[in-house]
């Protein structure tokens, strides 16, 4: 069996060798929603071998879709501007319902896959945790941990929570009750960590995007090693919805990258620009060859051939199309773009045309898709 090549960055990218399905984890929930029309032969075999019944029409699970958003314009500490900010959930009317506290500083949110009542948010103060679905919150990171950038829960060890922040990485092994810095292998300087993601296939396998590159741990952050050196901060990491060996990353100075071997080695998407910072990347749960990048300078960059070619998809976005984040709704493949100083924009045709959404004046810091029933939370931050 060969793994799919649906988003190879270059034609010479080595394909994965024969795999054993027993090694693969349960697929992410959005897999169940894919249509056969997008399957390539290799992928089809994978599906046939392991998940025929799900592809053949068993009722798809529902999803919850969240954003972390700031609705304040020009808020600074001390400002008397008061609006509602923080986590919002897509509701049945396609509106956004505020969840939890008003906090202007949330950068990401993660959920305990065993219990959706357990929520973690990364914020200016550190990591906030709720054990009751957002009704009450507690912060157990101390003063040393500030300006948190990202948070992730290990789906195979859900008591383990990883926090990326401006001065490194902190880890909790007791559901956010206590925290410790785990930075062995990270550089003394250059460990500004913008993004952190847990490999959903194995416990304790985590990738961190730092100032000086991508770092990988296989033992719950006991030891990190650099797997990609960069000239500037790695802004985002994502694991494929369709094949967990495949990861993508975007950076400040080095463009976009992909790995087909679980993040062990990386190759650059050769046609993605490197001249300006790329803020985030999202992978379409409904169509494996579709990826999209959000960027202040470039707006929306999209590919529908697994990264071989990329197009700017900014027609219909207001000028200047300074895009803070892009996200993809998991059930529909609907593309969303948060444009700075504007609002949220939506596209039904993967960025060819755009319409205004709600949330005037908002800045979305993270789009989060969470299967309603089980499995892991997944983020397109």
């Amino acid at each position, binding site marked *: 069996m060969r793994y799919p090549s649906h988003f190879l960055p270059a034609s010479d990218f080595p394909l994965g060798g024969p795999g054993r399905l027993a090694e693969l984890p349960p697929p992410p929930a959005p897999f169940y929603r894919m249509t056969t029309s997008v399957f390539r032969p290799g992928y089809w075999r994978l599906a046939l071998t392991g998940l025929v019944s799900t592809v053949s029409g068993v009722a798809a699970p529902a999803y919850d879709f969240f954003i972390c958003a700031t609705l304040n314009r*020009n808020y*600074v*500490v*001390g400002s*008397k501007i*008061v609006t509602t900010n923080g986590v919002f959930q897509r509701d049945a009317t396609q509106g956004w319902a505020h969840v939890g*506290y*008003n*906090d*202007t*500083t949330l950068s990401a949110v993660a959920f305990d896959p065993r219990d959706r009542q357990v929520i973690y948010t990364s914020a*200016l*103060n550190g990591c906030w*945790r709720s054990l009751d679905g957002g009704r*009450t*919150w*507690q*912060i*157990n990171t*101390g*003063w040393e941990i*500030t*300006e948190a*950038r990202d948070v992730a829960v290990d789906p195979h060890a859900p008591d383990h929570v990883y926090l990326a922040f*401006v*001065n490194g990485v902190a880890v909790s092994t007791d559901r956010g009750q206590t925290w410790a810095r785990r930075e062995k292998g990270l550089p003394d*300087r*250059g460990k*500004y960590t*913008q993004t952190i993601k847990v490999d959903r296939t194995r416990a304790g396998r985590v990738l961190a995007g730092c*100032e000086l590159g991508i770092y990988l741990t296989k033992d719950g952050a006991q030891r990190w090693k650099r797997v990609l050196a960069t000239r500037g*901060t790695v*802004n985002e990491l994502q694991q494929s919805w369709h094949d967990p060996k495949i990861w993508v990353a975007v950076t*400040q100075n080095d463009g976009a990258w992909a790995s087909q071997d679980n993040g062990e080695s990386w190759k650059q998407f050769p046609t993605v620009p490197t001249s*300006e*910072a790329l*803020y985030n990347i999202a992978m379409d749960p409904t169509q494996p060859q579709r990826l999209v990048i959000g960027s*202040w*300078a470039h707006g929306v960059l999209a590919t529908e051939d697994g990264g071989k070619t990329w197009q700017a998809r900014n027609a219909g976005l207001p000028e200047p199309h*300074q895009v803070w984040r892009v996200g993809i709704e998991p059930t529909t493949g609907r593309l969303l773009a948060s444009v*700075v100083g504007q609002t949220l924009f939506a596209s039904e045709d993967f960025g060819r045309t755009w319409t205004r959404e709600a949330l005037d004046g908002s800045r979305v810091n993270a789009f989060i898709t969470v299967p309603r029933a089980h499995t892991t939370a997944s983020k397109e931050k």
Partner: protein
Amino acid sequence: MKHLLPLACLLLCALAPLRAQPSFSGPMPSPRVVEDAAERRRAYLARLDEEIDWVAGDTKYRTDDPANFDIAEVVARLIRRQDVDGCSRRVIELMQQPGTGPFWMFPTVCLAYTGRDLLSAEARASIRQAWRTSRQIRGDTENHFVMYYVSLYLMNELYPDDAGDQWYTGRSSAENRAEAKAYLTNWMDLATTVGQGEFNPTHYVGEYLIPLLFLKTWARDPEMRQRGHIMLDWIFAELASTTLNGVLRGPNARTDEGSVIERWNAMASHFSWLAFGNTPPPAAYAIWGVYFAFAGASYEVPEVIYRIAVDRSGDYVQRDHKRTRRRWRYSDVEWAPIYKTSYMRRDYAVGSYQGGLADPIQTHVWDVTWAEPDPRGKHTTMFSLHPHSSPRVLQTYFATYPEPMVKAVTFEGKPSYDSPDKVMGCSPYEQVFQDLDTVVALYHIPAGERFPQINGFFSKDLRDVTEDASGWIFARGGNAYLAYRPLAPYRWIPYLHFNSGWAKQRRDLGGRLLVSEHLRNGTIVQAASASEFPNFEAFQSAMRALPLESRLDPVPSVKFTTLRGKAVSFTYGKAPVVNGRKLDTGTWPLFEGPYLNAGLNSRRLVLTHGNLRRVLDAAALTITDGPDKP
């Protein structure tokens, strides 16, 4: 006669604020040193009373309408026992929409402690409830953290045994206190070993002094009370030693455009007025300043600090060690050392630092400032800078992307940040050396830099500005003679000023900028007292006669014999040399001068003035007056 009515109206308008803020618009304070301790105390309490009365009085602070009173107005009325029931009602209203951060927290702490025996049970409960339900943002600067943790600490001492579900943090009173104490102890250790990060701030000095006063006044834990007291003395001592006639001089880790050019117009002047009585307070007592007055009766600067500020027998050099703001990226060190020099004379002060980027936006690196009989409205300063604006520098200190913050900060209280003609900020391409009243600033700006120029500030209050054929520009400021030597060609433009952090328009206040659009560049400034020369011409002649060699290629370099006879050699990228000796920053003390002395990492500051001596020992947590024990 018909012209008198408008004149009378103008006078009335002028008198109105005079009644409202007597010392702001009143005559200059007497420079007399108050010898009698009781008289000093009375005068200090009178100044506190003036502020409290002004906020509590019928004259306008913000509003006459009790329904619109802010927390300060409620606190002032509580102190004066005015309409206590109305205060309680207003507190309940105010707590319906609590704020979100340290600038809400510390006023609320002041309210809670001032009102603990005065406010109704419902009003006190409303404050308590707000601290349960409103998430407080800690901020991202050193002063934010100090305000946040002092406030958290004191509120959790006021309600010492509450469970986690009673606090927005979700943690118990004991846990909150422990975290706050840990941070504050760490900050104090850092400040007393290698210096403050936000050193000599023109405004943020209040964001330290006010919470520290609260800690000294209200902390139950004697250790924290003592820590508050030591740090209050420590920061007031720094303020005393770096002011001339109550006006803060020299470099500032953080300041703003207004205080850079009108040095008196700063929160620091409010504290000089309160503690030393030697300069008027700024308008509205710098707004936040009133919170110090509310608890100020529990503190008074010791005589030794008072005298350092007001009673000086001669010129002095003060060297201080500070540090930069914490760097998250693009740096081999978390914070870099800052080596600061101040030279104080009766007629002027010269101050500078070496060490690079103290803060990405609001730093002021060096200046020569002169004394004026009344500094209000006077732009008593001369300096140059490279107007640097850079995403990379912002990213060094902030969790931000490269593009948005440059423009964003111009809408967030720092409007000039991305302007080529700005007068505030530091640059990675500026290196400065000072020896007494000589400053050499060298610039090596790379091609492609956003603003390839340097700006020299020439005040509206300079007199007899003369562009001499020798290349020197001579001027008089107060009783100081000034010589400014640009090392590259230049042109003049009007200086246009943002009147406040949120101003959209700029105003021409009469000053000029010397703009020199050359990448390799430099400035030499020499100051002297008018009393040292028979006349201005003699000063100019003396300056023309000083040996000076300069070159700009391949890097800027100056050899200059100063007015004080020192042979200074300074090349960009190399250590300055004075009289053949390299400057050694490796031995730079935490404080060194006639009044403040402390070894690096010592945590022990010795304050001296004449026979007076006080030792602030932040390690032993002691304050000791008198001579060393044998």
